[in-house]
């Protein structure tokens, strides 16, 4: 009976685990934070969630048997983010937010003219996308993940990564076009 305890006790970590974790997983902290920041749309919340995810990763570390440490960590970060969203902002996950029906007040042409900044414009457009679309774009375009990595992080079949990205990019193009009417003439 104590044997089953020990089998389960992946949380018994020693200095050697600590050094390995430091070497393999901790270097991907930026990736973890970046994904959390884009999923939660808030730096402050992302700090808390990335911290929690890192500690969870450490507790599960005995279960990591080599391979892609970044993808392994990001999977945990993503799960922690969704759990946090379910608890704190359930509405965001339930409604497939549609930027055509609910234009963000902050993306009015006036606000954009004041902001005037490409980064601002892209950030707002990305943030209007539903999280499922936002995450594939962030993983692909900011994190440079392969389709295989995206599939393992987001738990979607590898065969559908390409169409998920296609839809996400279409939504983003649309969000950008809506946000700046002066560019609308370019599309269609």
């Amino acid at each position, binding site marked *: 009976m104590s044997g089953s305890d020990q089998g389960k006790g992946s949380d018994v970590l020693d*200095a*050697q685990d*600590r050094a390995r974790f430091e070497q393999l997983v901790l270097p991907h*902290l930026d990736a973890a934070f970046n994904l959390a920041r884009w999923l939660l749309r808030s730096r402050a919340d992302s700090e808390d969630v990335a911290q929690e995810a*890192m*500690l969870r990763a450490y507790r599960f570390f005995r279960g990591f048997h080599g391979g892609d440490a970044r993808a392994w960590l990001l999977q945990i970060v993503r799960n922690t983010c969704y759990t946090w969203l379910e608890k704190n902002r359930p509405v965001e996950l339930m409604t497939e937010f549609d930027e055509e029906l609910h234009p963000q007040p902050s993306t009015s042409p006036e606000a954009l003219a004041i902001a005037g900044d490409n980064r601002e414009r892209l950030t707002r457009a990305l943030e209007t996308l539903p999280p499922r679309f936002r995450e594939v774009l962030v993983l692909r375009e900011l994190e440079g993940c392969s389709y295989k990595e995206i599939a393992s992080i987001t738990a979607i079949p590898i065969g559908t990564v*390409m169409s998920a990205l296609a839809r996400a*990019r279409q939504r983003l193009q649309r969000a950008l076009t809506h946000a700046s009417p002066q560019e609308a003439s370019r*599309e269609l």
Partner: protein
Amino acid sequence: MSCDFTRTVLHGYLDGELDASRAAEFERHLESCRECATALGAEESLRSSLHGASLYERAPVSLRKKIRADLDAATAVSVALRIPAWRWLGVAAAVLIVATFSWYAWPRVQNSAASAPFTAAEIIDAHVRSLQPGHLTDVASTDQHTVKPWFNGKLAFVPPVKDFADEGFPLVGGRLDVLGGQNVAALVYSRRKHLINVFVLPTKEPDTPIHPPGARQGYQWVHWRHQGMEFCAISDVSASDLHELAQLIYQ
């Protein structure tokens, strides 16, 4: 109105995820399909604006510190749980013996080693030994207020312990080591993925500035004396990184 390829395969092509034959097939298709050619141009420009807008957000230093503290806590607790209480008595007794022995051993060793109390080979050996699994730290903590008191009663001097995470040299921990037959304090810092050992021992020699680095077998070390203590930092990081850390400690 909408080409099937525009909706899917184009993205695999854009991302370099198509196999060679499908990519060639799509390129042939591109020559005849204006819709796909336009869409590909639009996707490429979207991508370049995404890449050019510095949207990537890096973790703040404060978060890195908090996480290291969490990991220390998770590690320390489990180690404490695994060692039965009676064993701690043994540990305490051993520490006492080492401390007593070193108290008597200091003067003789100091006298016999006039200038450098250890050789380059001994420093490299000690460094390499520390990198073997489980040997790096006796006290693993990024908190200088945890590491410094840990040495209390284990050595007949107080090594200066400071975390330089903000300067890019986070403290990893400390341990007792033996160098040239002497008990010394070893402080461990990390620099990106590299580890740096800083050995500290008392000396009666006058202060010396940070010497130009020595190098052998791919390791570099720097040596200096300050306020009655002898320092030697060794690592496989660049000589300039090592010098930077030495200066931080010297101050």
